[in-house]
């Protein structure tokens, strides 16, 4: 391990960076210092320059990626200039698959060691150690392509760990992972922190998960400048304002509401334990594992929360039209792998359904079966009571718009306007096209980009374009496959607003996601998949009460739900009126 003689592991001194000559500065006059052994969290909106900063810290700009820099970055006292620091810093990126270059797991870990000219005799030991720290010891000789995404990311980490750097930089390492993968990755992170004195620079969106590990928080604003820098309590207590509010950890948001309700809070809690302790202090009448839940069921039941059957069997009792009915559907890949195993799903017209489950549980496969992209081996699917096996390929298009995870996969033309027209001309005569294209452009905030090449748009714009093309024919059903994948909370929210608008217009929405926050915020109904079967169908609140299902499907509830669980009612904080109810409980009105 490289030992640093100086106090500061990382020093950034009035640093600026830009990609284009005479272009805008992506990072502007950034300055901060990080001590050896500190764990720092960097927050900021998409495109603000976080990734650029990470690359500059490692020297990848200007070594691998062209860019102009001003100011200094010092690692352990030495300036990072045009040379790459091999062994001092390790960096793990967002996309697991693109970080792995070798066919086999052990070869991947060996790669860094080879570049460091580590003698062959020492390699095995270092490889084994790194793999076992990341839970991959039994996969040593396996082919990388057989690993799950979460495992791939752990391998990326192991490969960096083996090089024994003293600084670890993480650029949104869990953005592409499912909850299980994220959980494992954070386990590895905790172990890393615990075992040796390393300096960690973490760029993340999952504030709630990252916060417990962190000594310091840096907040970056839209323009690539540091807006706040300090201890977590410091930074969040004074509350970021305006658009930066998105970075408020849930604990702080809840505490703020408490404060506004007149309750005294001396120190803002950040972790789950601290928050629980606070609530118990403020509401001493809360008893462990009882308390609110019993009394809540007696009190007014919120009419806004729909009551659906919470059992995994389709309810045929409503008089609403079933938009999608799936009965006993099975499907296996040509390789023999079973993707769907007698899955059942029943979605009424106009419902907003969140389809959740771990990677590989069959969510995308089910969606593809519903869309007619694959024909199930057995079982029936019907759309608005029309049996799917009688529909021809082109007819599915009338019913369903399917927005793929990677919007680029769906682009067929070179201009945004043509892209919209491509979908529209299937149904509308040429005279109408201009008008309808204009409609879509306006609805999805794409005015001004008619001539642009779809591939050159920003992530958010690409997604909106993708959605726009899929609702062009006014299809009644819209399926979205991980639409907020890899996006920051802000852009995710913007997209979801568009989706909600479509829902209000009466469309049936199927949202495939890992993000439990989305489920909580937007899902009317949820369906959970596990190994090709739908093991639960019901409201989010009902879901959070089924702890066994959550465990089996490797789902981790969001912060407020976990807090609720600890206080006796998982759905306590999912309703807006929790403060009134807790106050009522406290003053004995219940």
């Amino acid at each position: 391990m490289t030992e640093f003689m100086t106090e500061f592991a990382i020093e950034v001194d009035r640093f600026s960076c830009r990609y284009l000559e005479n272009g805008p500065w992506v990072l502007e006059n950034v300055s901060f210092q990080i001590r050896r052994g500190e764990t720092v969290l960097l927050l900021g909106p998409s495109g603000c320059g976080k990734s650029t900063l990470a690359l500059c810290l490692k020297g990848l700009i200007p070594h691998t990626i062209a860019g102009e820099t001003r100011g200094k970055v010092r690692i352990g006292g030495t300036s990072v200039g045009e040379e790459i620091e091999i062994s001092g810093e390790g960096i793990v990126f967002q996309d697991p698959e693109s970080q792995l270059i070798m066919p086999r797991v052990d070869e991947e870990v060996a790669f860094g060691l080879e570049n460091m000219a580590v003698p062959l005799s020492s390699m095995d030991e270092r490889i084994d150690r790194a793999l076992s720290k990341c839970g991959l010891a039994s996969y040593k000789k396996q082919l990388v392509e057989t690993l799950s995404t979460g495992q791939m990311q752990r391998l990326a980490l192991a490969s960096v760990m083996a090089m024994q750097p003293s600084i670890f930089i993480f650029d949104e390492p869990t953005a592409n992972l499912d909850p299980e993968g994220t959980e494992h990755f954070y386990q590895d992170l905790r172990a890393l922190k615990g075992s040796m004195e390393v300096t960690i620079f973490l760029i993340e969106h999952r504030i709630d998960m990252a916060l417990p590990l962190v000594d310091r928080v840096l907040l970056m604003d839209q323009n690539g400048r540091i807006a706040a820098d300090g201890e977590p309590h410091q930074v969040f207590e004074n509350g970021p304002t305006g658009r930066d509010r998105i970075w408020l950890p849930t604990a702080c948001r809840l505490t703020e509401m408490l404060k506004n309700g007149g309750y005294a809070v001396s120190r803002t809690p950040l972790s789950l334990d601290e928050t629980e302790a606070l609530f118990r202090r403020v509401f001493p009448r809360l008893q462990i594992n009882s308390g609110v839940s019993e009394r809540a069921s007696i009190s007014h039941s919120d009419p806004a929360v729909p009551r659906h059957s919470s059992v995994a069997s389709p309810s045929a009792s409503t008089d609403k039209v079933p938009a999608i009915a799936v009965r006993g559907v099975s499907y296996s890949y040509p390789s023999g792998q079973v993707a769907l195993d007698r899955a059942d799903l029943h979605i009424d017209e106009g419902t907003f359904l969140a389809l959740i489950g771990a990677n590989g549980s069959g969510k995308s496969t089910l969606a593809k079966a519903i869309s007619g992209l694959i024909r199930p081996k057995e079982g029936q699917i019907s759309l608005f009571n029309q049996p799917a096996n009688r529909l021809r390929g082109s007819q599915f298009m009338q019913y369903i718009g399917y927005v793929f995870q990677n919007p680029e996969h769906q682009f067929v033309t070179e201009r945004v306007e043509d892209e919209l027209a491509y979908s529209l001309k299937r149904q509308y005569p040429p005279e109408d096209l201009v008008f309808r294209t204009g409609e879509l452009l306006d609805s999805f905030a794409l005015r001004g980009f008619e001539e642009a090449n779809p591939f050159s748009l920003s992530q958010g714009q690409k997604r909106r374009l993708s959605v726009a093309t899929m609702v062009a024919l006014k299809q009644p059903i819209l399926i979205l496959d991980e639409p907020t994948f890899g996006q920051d909370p802000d852009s995710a929210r913007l997209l979801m607003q568009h989706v909600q608008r479509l829902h209000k217009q009466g469309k049936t929405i199927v949202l495939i996601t890992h993000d439990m926050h989305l489920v909580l915020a937007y899902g009317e109904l949820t369906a959970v998949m596990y190994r090709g079967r739908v093991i639960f169908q019901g409201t989010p609140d009902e879901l959070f009460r089924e702890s066994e299902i959550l465990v089996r499907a490797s789902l981790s509830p969001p912060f407020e739900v976990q807090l609720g669980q600890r206080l006796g009612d998982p759905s306590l904080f999912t309703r807006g009126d929790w403060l009134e109810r807790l106050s009522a409980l406290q003053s004995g009105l219940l």
Partner: protein
Amino acid sequence: MKKNINDKSWARWTTVELIVTAVISVAFGLLFMAYSLLYVALVPVFGQVGIMIFLGLYYIIGVLVPYIVRRPGAAILASFLAALTELAVGTPFGIAALWAGLVQGAGAEAVFAVSRWRNYRWYTLILAAIVSGIFAFGYEYILFSYGSLEPVVRIGLFLVRIPSAAVLAGLLGKVIGDALARTGVLRSLRISKR
């Protein structure tokens, strides 16, 4: 001795250029496999000589990659990797395809070498494609003993591929390269630095 992207050495490939070459070559290797099936299926329709009108596409890799990357050896490396991909996914021409790739690539490379890897205008690309085809003809001559075929047929096999190479490799290569450049994804490659 450490190098970085600001190194003006025109011969030294950056890692990005190497891996981009790999991915484009693999993409076309996969394409060629599918194309081969189509090719074989159409032989009864066009005849063994006529089918060569489609042959030119195979030379595109020795045009497109150099057009994008603009480094010495690009044509040979890309052709080799495309052939390796074909070998790996089961092309019937297997190892012979590997050597064919090297030979074709060498043809295109020769053309770019003449201008010391500086000229990538449309006529150079077309010429590279054609020379690729000529070298490939030489290789096939040995592999399939063209020497023992009717002279008319021999000439046909040679001539038909020329326009095919020019259009399906030379022109199409430029078209695809430019289309990719328009998506913005080639920003850090030499094609974007005029």
